[in-house]
């Protein structure tokens, strides 16, 4: 019992999570059925129970440190369940099953390995494993092509996107590698005027790793994941070295690469055209239909939304995974959308704070990199939904329908909690 009281703030927040999840579910169900039946509460209550179980698990294990991330991830997942209920109720049970698996993965990541710093000792293992997983969709039997992108592997009826796991493996690898690279850089720093001259032999493996990943993504035709990996690479490099120059070079490469991709790949050009002229006669009924419908949904949202269950998000093709943000914004308005963005920003902010206080450079880089993944993913998908950037294939973390995304993001949360726990143990804070 004493152990349970150590995580009181987390427990308090989880009650609010329960309130949010149950209220949303009731609203959606009642609007749909024009009535209310208690059976409709089963799914949200089940998820809330899972969240509480995880809380008890953390308390019983004596995990110290952060108490904000579990409730944040839980409330986002709860909103996700409400939205799946609203947009694709036939997939609701599936999504709930994935939350069970995600909870299991979370618990496993809390328990294994015993010492989180051990992760840094196997960096090449992670790198190779990551590349292998990344290439697995290209295999003949298990690889599946969906909507023109070959990024899935399937075992029986279960489909999984390996790049979701790979992004975490890559961050772990980069964090470990850059920790060492940092020291080398500190000793051999030479500059050519304003331009830093990097110790090239040490830079080569990491650039090679990243280049292989990019090539694989190009083969698999996943625009979004490519963008994500590039972003992660640049961010980790900046975090470790602080050299704005490397970042500028990276961004320049991005622009050049993007231009080449636009010329060379039809599907990239198509996405950019849809982004630039979605309402033109040729585009709006064809390739741009999805985005145009998404924008109509946003327009219908106004300040307070059309009301849960009252909008018309079903007009957007594949809304439950690609356009959940627009669907949510239509029904809860700008007010609700802003709250959702604030939740993500809070999550990232908390992750960065954990990174700042971490005891070793590896843990700092790890926590900051993981937080950055969530930030970048959210910004890219919301940006695409709101026509700020072209659409990619990434989904909104925790909220959008998708098993692999949910499982890996909960593992990400577990890793951040472990870093926070390690910090607390070192510094002697609760």
């Amino acid at each position, binding site marked *: 019992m004493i152990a349970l009281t150590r995580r009181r*703030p*987390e427990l*308090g*927040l989880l009650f*609010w*999570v329960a*309130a*949010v999840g149950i*209220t*949303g579910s*009731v*609203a959606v169900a*009642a*609007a749909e059925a*024009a*009535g209310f039946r208690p059976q409709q509460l089963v799914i949200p209550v089940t998820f809330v129970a899972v969240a509480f179980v995880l809380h008890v698990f953390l308390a019983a294990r004596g995990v110290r440190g*952060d*108490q*904000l991330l579990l*409730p*944040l991830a839980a*409330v986002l997942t709860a909103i996700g369940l409400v939205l799946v209920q609203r947009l694709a109720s036939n997939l609701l049970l599936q999504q709930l099953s994935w939350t069970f698996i995600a909870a299991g993965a979370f618990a496993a990541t809390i328990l294994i390995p015993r010492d989180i710093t051990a992760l840094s000792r196997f960096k090449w293992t992670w790198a190779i494993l990551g590349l292998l997983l990344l290439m697995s969709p290209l295999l003949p039997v298990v690889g599946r092509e969906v909507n023109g992108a070959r990024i899935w592997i399937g075992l029986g009826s279960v489909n999984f996107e390996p790049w979701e796991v790979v992004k975490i493996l890559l961050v772990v690898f980069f964090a470990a590698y850059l920790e060492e690279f940092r020291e080398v850089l500190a000793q051999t720093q030479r500059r050519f005027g304003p331009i830093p001259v990097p110790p090239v032999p040490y830079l080569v493996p990491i650039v090679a790793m990243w280049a292989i990943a990019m090539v694989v993504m190009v083969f698999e035709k996943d625009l979004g994941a490519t963008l994500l990996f590039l972003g992660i690479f640049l961010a980790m490099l900046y975090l470790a070295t602080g050299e704005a120059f490397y970042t500028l070079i990276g961004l320049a490469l991005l622009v050049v690469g993007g231009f080449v991709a636009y010329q060379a790949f039809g599907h990239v050009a198509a996405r950019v055209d849809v982004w630039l002229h979605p309402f033109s006669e040729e585009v709006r009924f064809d390739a741009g239909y999805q985005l145009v419908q998404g924008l109509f949904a946003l327009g219908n949202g106004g300040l*307070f*939304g059309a*009301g*849960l*269950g009252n909008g018309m998000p079903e007009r957007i093709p594949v809304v439950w995974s690609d356009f959940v943000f627009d669907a949510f914004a239509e029904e*809860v308005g700008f*007010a*609700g959308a802003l*709250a*959702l963005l*604030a*939740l993500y920003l*809070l999550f990232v*902010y*908390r992750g960065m*704070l954990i990174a700042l*206080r971490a*005891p*070793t450079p590896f843990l700092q880089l790890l926590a900051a990199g993981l937080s950055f993944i969530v930030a970048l993913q959210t910004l890219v998908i919301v940006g695409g939904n709101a026509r700020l950037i072209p659409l990619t294939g990434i989904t909104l973390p925790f909220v959008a329908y998708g098993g692999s995304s949910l499982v890996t993001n909960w593992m990400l949360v577990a890793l951040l909690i472990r870093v926070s726990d390690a910090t607390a*143990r*070192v*510094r*002697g*804070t*609760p």
Partner: protein
Amino acid sequence: MEITFAVLLWGVRIAFLLLLYLFLLRAFGVLHRSLVAERAGDSATRALGVLVVERSAGHAPRVGERFSLRASTSIGRDAGNDVPLSDEAASARHAVLELRDGDWWIEDLGSTNGTLVNGTRIERAERLRFGDELAIGRIAMRIEKGAG
């Protein structure tokens, strides 16, 4: 009846938005309080530490040399250690000096000749206080507060 249902439904929708914002506010509150607690906890533990070499066998380490302590500092004959000792009596990986819960601990990694704290050979691990003396072979070091 239709109207009451419609009103109730709208009530639930508004409640959802309100609860979302209330959660946000509470979460900020929790964050703020935990940050304050962390800062307070930090200042309570003066964790910065330094190993100052008092006696040495040869030139590595030199007498007077100071080693900044990290969360985990390795000590031994192997050159890869944070504190390398060129004494035959020291094992390759002899001991590790760790910060645990705001206190400094010395842990012997199963060395051949053991580690002494203030003259007494330690069992396995022992908590240190600033001013304590560590001895490995013919090398003696003192743990002090500070940043080196």
